């Protein structure tokens, strides 16, 4: 049963990656004109040679085949606006910055989110619960760019505690991380709280208590394990949030990460760069979702037994 589950997920992973690649290819081809339209009066013979050089004279299905085989080899093509640089180079140079910030944001979101959610659940309908949930609603509602702008203005300009832009020292991580993690923290807190409440009111907790187990044992053996488990499913959306957030946060805080390059390529309408980074992001997101599915399959015994869990969004 477990092998079938994994095979099923692998199949879907490959299929959705193929879908994304095909969508990008179709969209790229549907842009009117060709990449060399902006070059001024090239003689038709030279243009034909350029087109042949880039393989643009071949029939569309052959181009599609070449594109896919290039992708498999990790070749994302050349930037259209900066023709001496490959898309892969851009990604290699800028992604480490985004990754460091992203990982910090993910760790912070999970730690604070789970703590906040558990505090709220253990103090159900008390002051702490209410204030944690009000905080969570605010966190879900304030868009990251608003949060980032306010933080930057307040703690960078008005009270210059932090640097306004850049990512050189450790304290430069503080503001971008808060802005990036605010939304996931709120989500995780709400998720953890509702799961915890469900677990705390379930029969097996009553059983565990009535057979005389100490509060601590009940907590660590039953409550925590079952209550935090669903947070694992949030790993996929969390990655998506951090990536989408990075487009904005890196722009605002002047971090030379991949998000900033992506926004720049959108501004320049550098199609091959946009498509290449999109595929790269798609790969990360789908891998995150894939790992989540696998991890959940291992952790949750219900899936191992082959009982299909009804999908609740």
């Amino acid at each position: 049963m477990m092998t079938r589950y994994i095979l099923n997920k692998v199949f879907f992973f490959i299929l959705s990656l193929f879908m994304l690649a095909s969508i990008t290819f179709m969209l790229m081809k549907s842009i009117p004109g060709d990449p060399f339209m902006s070059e001024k009066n090239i003689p038709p013979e030279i243009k034909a040679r350029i087109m042949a050089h880039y393989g643009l004279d071949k029939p569309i299905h052959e181009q599609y085949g070449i594109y896919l085989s290039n992708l498999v080899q990790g070749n994302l093509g050349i930037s259209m606006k900066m023709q001496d640089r490959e898309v892969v180079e851009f990604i290699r140079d800028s992604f480490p910055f985004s990754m460091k910030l992203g990982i910090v944001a993910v760790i912070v979101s999970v730690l604070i989110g789970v703590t906040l959610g558990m505090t709220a659940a253990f103090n159900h309908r008390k002051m702490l619960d209410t204030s944690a949930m009000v905080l969570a609603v605010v966190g879900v509602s304030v868009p990251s760019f608003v949060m980032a702008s306010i933080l930057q203005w307040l703690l960078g300009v008005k009270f210059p505690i932090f640097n306004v832009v850049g990512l050189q020292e450790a304290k430069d991580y503080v503001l971008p991380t808060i802005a990036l993690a605010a939304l996931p923290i709120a989500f995780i807190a709400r998720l953890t709280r509702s799961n915890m409440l469900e677990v705390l009111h379930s029969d097996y907790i009553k059983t565990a208590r009535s057979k005389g187990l100490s509060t601590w044992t009940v907590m660590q053996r039953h409550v925590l394990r079952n209550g935090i488990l669903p947070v694992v499913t949030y790993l996929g959306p969390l990655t998506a949030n951090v990536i989408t957030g990075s487009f904005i946060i890196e722009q605002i805080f002047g971090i030379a990460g991949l998000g900033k390059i992506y926004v720049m390529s959108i501004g320049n309408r550098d199609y091959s760069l946009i498509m290449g980074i999109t595929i790269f992001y798609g790969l990360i997101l789908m891998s995150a979702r894939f790992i989540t599915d696998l991890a959940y399959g291992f952790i949750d015994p219900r899936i191992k037994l082959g009982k299909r869990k009804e999908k609740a969004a």
Partner: protein
Amino acid sequence: MISFNKQRPLSDKQYSAEQFTKVPIDEHAAEAIERESISAWRDAWYRLRSNVGAMFGLSILVLLIVMAFIGPLITPYDYYTNNLELTNQPPSAEHWFGTDDLGRDMFARTWMGARISLIVGFSAALINLIIGVIYGGIMGYIGGRLDDVMNKISEIIYSVPDMLVAILLVVVLEPSLFTIIMALCITGWINMSWIVRGQMMQLKNQEYVLASRSLGASGTRILFRHLVPNSLGPIIVTLTLAVPTAIFSEAVLSFLGLGVQLPAASWGTMINDALKAMILYPWRMLFPAILISLTMLAFNMFGDGLRDALDPKLKK
């Protein structure tokens, strides 16, 4: 009469059977309903009304919608005329929200931005509702092999990152209100279809549906008398929470320079513009930032309240 308390007899009087009259039990009176009967929707409304957060959200929403209609009309300035002598003004009696870098009135622009946000939010949610209910309804009601295939298709579409596809589509098709709404609908309907599917699958096996069917009710009657009204609650909640998601996505797109075209401006564009001049003119960011946060907050609080009110499990 037997006295239980020997020390203190109940009374010296002797009672006889004649002194008592028999009170007949009026069976109709016993069955009479004293209180007015409350329908499920009235009950939900009562519970919603007592939820402070939800009512706060609702009043903010009403205010926002009203201001989006009349806001641009109550100021003598329009949202697109440049006035290069009065650029970057702080809020004043003349320009209530100040002016931007081209001297355009921020009050008019902010409420025009509200119009765009609300239009995008409501249209995207509505389109998602229509597609999601039809697709999810077919999946859940018919079931079987068709359900398997359609469910797999929706899972594949869902696995393609939504924001990336939206960005790609708007880049290729050129930004406009229409392309933005369309881009947000490509993957947005799937959540709704899953909700509807789950509801349908759960409801169609209920006893009252079986009873109705065995009494000879037709498929359409069962669908519209039982399945649709009973799944309306979760659908409405999902719809309410889809609006802020769409508004947020539109703001991100316009912040990235993929918003509606000039001179029109949405909140995302305004905040992006204001960010460039943040050190000198911080107030330019103030009103769009507050309003978009407030809109999202209002929708989320109202949606949460609605979910609690429509969930019979949370009934006290």
